């Protein structure tokens, strides 16, 4: 059985047994692929696995719209980490999700510079070796530049920005209801390219939550290599605090606790 057939079969069992009211996955329809809520086993013939598409935000939307019952969702490693990070932010209730864990191939891992191309429990596929994010060609190119060169690199890249907000819209961990990027006191409105604060604010709002899925970059009409920026920061988080977002729901970001790991008085950061 191909991985696609295996996922269809597991999803079918979940639906038929009544364990879930629907399964969130990718559907091929009219020759194109997009997120879909499979509500019956018959629909599953159209379920596909590629192209890789971050489904976590769709999960959040559907869960919040339908407050009852459980849903299945097909997750790759990055999507599982996204869901965990969203659960930390109280965006999804993990006990309402039944995951179908899908492992990526090593080729996909290299393409995404993904260290852990599989979810916690693998239902379909085999655990492949991950790639080292810091070995990514673009990251190495960047690190080969001096500080001035890196600044010029990012200035040129950000100058391309046409302010579509796609990076924000697709990010599974970018969750503010009122977005400061749209506030004139932070970013001048109605002009492109937006000034540097647009990128810096977006970046640090998600920097310690970023699970490295690459959805921001995949949505960027100007091909700004946002993943490289996040990879470098994630590496520092790992080095300095031994912290990696999306791994453990109990583990909170070191940037929202004190350096001594003392929780905030009101319990936030615990």
């Amino acid at each position, binding site marked *: 059985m191909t991985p696609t057939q295996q996922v269809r079969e597991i999803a079918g069992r979940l639906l038929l047994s009544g364990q879930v009211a629907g399964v969130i996955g990718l*559907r091929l329809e*009219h*020759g194109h692929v997009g*997120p879909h809520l499979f509500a019956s086993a018959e629909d599953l013939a159209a379920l596909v696995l590629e192209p890789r598409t971050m489904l976590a935000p769709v999960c959040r939307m559907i869960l919040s719209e339908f407050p009852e019952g459980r849903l299945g969702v097909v997750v790759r490693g990055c999507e599982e980490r996204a869901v965990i990070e969203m659960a930390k932010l109280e965006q999804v209730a993990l006990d309402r999700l039944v995951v179908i864990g899908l492992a990526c191939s090593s080729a996909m891992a290299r393409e995404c510079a993904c260290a852990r191309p599989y979810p916690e429990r693998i239902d379909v596929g085999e655990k492949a070796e991950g790639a080292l994010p810091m070995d990514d060609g673009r990251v190495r190119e960047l690190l080969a530049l001096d500080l001035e060169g890196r600044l010029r690199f990012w200035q040129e890249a950000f100058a391309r920005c*046409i302010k579509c907000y796609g990076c924000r819209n697709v990010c599974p961990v970018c969750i503010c209801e009122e977005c400061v990027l749209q506030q004139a006191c932070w970013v001048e409105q*109605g002009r*492109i390219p937006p000034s540097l604060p647009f990128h810096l604010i977006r970046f640090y709002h998600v920097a310690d939550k970023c699970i490295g899925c690459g959805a921001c970059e*995949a*949505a960027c009409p100007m*091909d700004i290599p946002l993943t490289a920026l996040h990879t470098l920061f994630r590496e520092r988080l790992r080095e300095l605090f031994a912290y990696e977002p999306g791994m453990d729901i109990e583990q909170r970001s070191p940037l929202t606790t004190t350096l001594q790991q003392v929780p905030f008085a009101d319990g936030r950061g615990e």
Partner: protein
Amino acid sequence: MDYRSVLTTCPYCGCGCGMHLPVVNGRLERPIPVRTHPLSQGRLCIKGWAAHEHVTSPDRLTRPLVRSEHGLRAASWEEALSLVASRLGGIRDEHGPNTLAFLCSAKCTNEENYLLQKLARVVFGTNNIDHCARLCHSPTVAGLATAFGSGAMTNSIPEIEEADCILVTGSNTSENHPLISTRVLRAKRRGSRLIVVDPRRIHLSRFADIYARPRPGTDVAWINGLMHIILAEGWEDREFIAARTEGLEALRAKVADYAPERVEAITGIEQQQLREIARLYANARRGSIIYAMGITQHVTGTDNVLSLANLAMLTGQVGRRGTGVNPLRGQNNVQGACDTGGLPNVFPGYQPVADPEARAKFGKAWLGEGVHPSSVRELPAEPGLTVVEMMSAAAEGSLKAMYVLAENPMLSDPDINHVRAALRNLEFLVVQDIFLTETAELADVVLPGSSFAERDGTVTSTDRSVQRVRKAIGPPGDAQADWEIIARVARACGADGFEHGSPKAVFAEMANLTPIYAGISYDRLESEWLRWPCRSPHDPGTDFLHGEGFSRGLGAFTPVDYREPAEVPDEQYPFVLTTGRVLFHYHTGSMTRRSPSLDRELREGFVELNPMDARRLGIAEGGRVRIASRRGTIQIKARLTPAAPEGVLFIPFHFAESAANVLTHRNLDPVAKIPEYKVCAVSVAAD
């Protein structure tokens, strides 16, 4: 649990980006970009991301409206339709068919445009049918048809990445075709040379190898200058010229007059820079020209387009993958509205109304064997009026009634004060739209149509890709799908031939009569990507045009001379005004200004002016200024930027309260009848 996701096409510019529209419990959510989509590849611009917002605006029209003594009042469909049928029919019978005129819509589907032009021609017997393609790319349709035999983008959008020299002129691509600027910058990063020629220092100019700044309205001069240099240096493609073209000698004689010194004097482009542009473009392996309204919206629009076509043929930069002449069309279906016959001189598929064979073909299909309930016995042979001519005819009284489908000439046409007088002078005005636009406010009957999310159909993107739009939700209140409304009007007039029952059936009828669409069907579009021409069920469609030969056979060189713009600055009106669009809004703003995330970015109009001019006039950033032309005066906020050259102002035309087109004039290109939105003379003063 009602969650659906509907694949459709963005309703904004001509890029034709793909999106899934999620529908949760009957409510639209933010679109999801389509990663498998060959044009947009999982990306959208800010307008695409906001495409659902206008759909649920509280301002949507939900009932037909009929004018009474006290203004517009709600009415039933029966009342509105019978009024439309009796008044339009009455005016036709009393004053003749050519006292009626119809505006199609570049925002509506191929099916709707096909039906409306059929209604005009078959039920009312007039070719007075046009739409705002007249105001954007009519010189392209005319100019490229003369040079090549077909007036559309010669290449597909993905091919732009394959060019190794891209000349962008008169196109602010990043703002008006964002997902095409993606391709331009990708090509640039892969080593392609980028040349930008534009009076405004647009976003793309930051990345250009060469940015040249001509004076507005001097395009023929610098393009002739390029050809002068190319011929002098022997950079022309002799093999291509000999095999594929005719008329070089006349062109050679003409461009001999455009030595670089003279060109610099006319255009302001330095000789050395002009030479460098000529060298890069002529010697590129795959040179691609991208242009838009900076080229077309001039009284010399057709000449400008002909010049670009001359340049491409002279250097053999057309008819292969990745190289050609690429007009970027502004609206989601402006290409399709032209293709399906929304023009006064051609039937669908650019088959001339003046051609007896074409008339016989469409007459047979539409009128049967001379048995038809309407009074029309044969199709009219005389080409009809164009958009601006319609307004003039309305003003002088020879045009009595108009039917306007989803267009807003009260903001989009030149010299708005004149447009208002013209529309008020009509005996009867019907407007079919989703909002009570500035034009609909003047109507006698308003018919509530559907948004892009509420109906089925097809649209044709700027690169000739034919794509589906799909109904995700129903229209609000009593509003209806526009194709259904047009069919109901036809039936109310007693006409046969409008009982299709579905957009699919309309498309099939249209494709059957339109050779460039003949091989396209809804069934094929389910699994295939098709660009016209696609002439048979097994034809895979056409990525780039003119590969084997030009549509007209040999490519035709047409020598053209530089002519001054119709209105040049003088003592009283010392500035040049150029108009256009910005990233955050779309055309007359009826959709985008009702979209909160777009409105938030840009709430009001502005005039862009150079800081040196501003200092001289005592104008501060954000200050109010008064701008006057011979047609009228507006007040508007100042935006100081070196993007504007000294002596040149730019105003986007989206904003009714500071409408740029109060200022513009009605002088037309003699061939394409496009007004010169890009040059008029104005004065500016602090308010």
